[in-house]
């Protein structure tokens, strides 16, 4: 079961700084290729999309396929010019959207 995502965003930054964000969400990323004990295929269930928004504007997104490891870890950079809030979303195959928000002070 997917649980609360873990996100690491610096608390402070200077204007125009490129910060590194690390995210991790617990998710089995069931590939749809494995078989259960009866030899039947286990249906695919993965996080297929990740998005990062800053003050409502999309700054980064990722399309994930079945070859991404369980508990997908994503590390990326964002250039911050002002204080604000990041909103991160993970979209599950079953339609569930997991979200997390983090704020940063720029100055």
């Amino acid at each position, binding site marked *: 079961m997917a649980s609360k995502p873990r996100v690491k965003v610096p608390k402070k930054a200077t204007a125009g700084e490129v910060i590194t964000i690390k995210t991790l969400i617990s998710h089995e990323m069931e*590939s749809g290729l494995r078989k259960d004990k009866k030899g039947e295929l286990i249906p695919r269930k993965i996080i297929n999309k990740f998005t990062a928004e800053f003050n409502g504007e999309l700054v980064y997104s990722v399309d994930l396929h079945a070859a991404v490891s369980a508990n997908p870890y994503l590390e990326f950079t*964002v*250039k911050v010019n002002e204080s604000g809030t990041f909103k991160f979303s993970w979209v599950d195959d079953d339609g569930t959207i997991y979200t997390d928000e983090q704020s940063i002070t720029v100055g």
Partner: protein
Amino acid sequence: MNITRRQALVLSAGAAAFAVAGLNSTPSFASAEDTEKAIMAISGGKMPETGKVTLTAPEIAENGNTVPISVSVDSAMTEGDLVESVSIFAEGNPNPDVVTFNFTALSGAASATTRMRLAKTQNVIAVAKMADGSTYMDKKEVKVTIGGCGG
């Protein structure tokens, strides 16, 4: 051309070995052609140039279930020199698609890290698409001791 009995035997043995090898190969794995098709879909039909994009992957991965990979593209990430996306492909996985990172002008740098599954020893390919439509690629072979992807 006359074929001697000895030559005929050698030929038929070779043909038999080839047929057996063909039967043993598992059709569920993506081939290099599938990967090439996926790359061509991004580049618009021509092979991407090498350079600009750097793929970092371990030479030997003990566990194919979690192989750390990083990509970075040499770009200023401004309006005129922007990386639109970087896609990762695995030639020997059941499906060549792994992940696509979509950057914006607010990304600051075109770099990303994640962990991926590798079914067996194979080439991992990163294809970067620039905003002007040009594409670049980098390829790394990763040796896998224990394959991922289950089975």
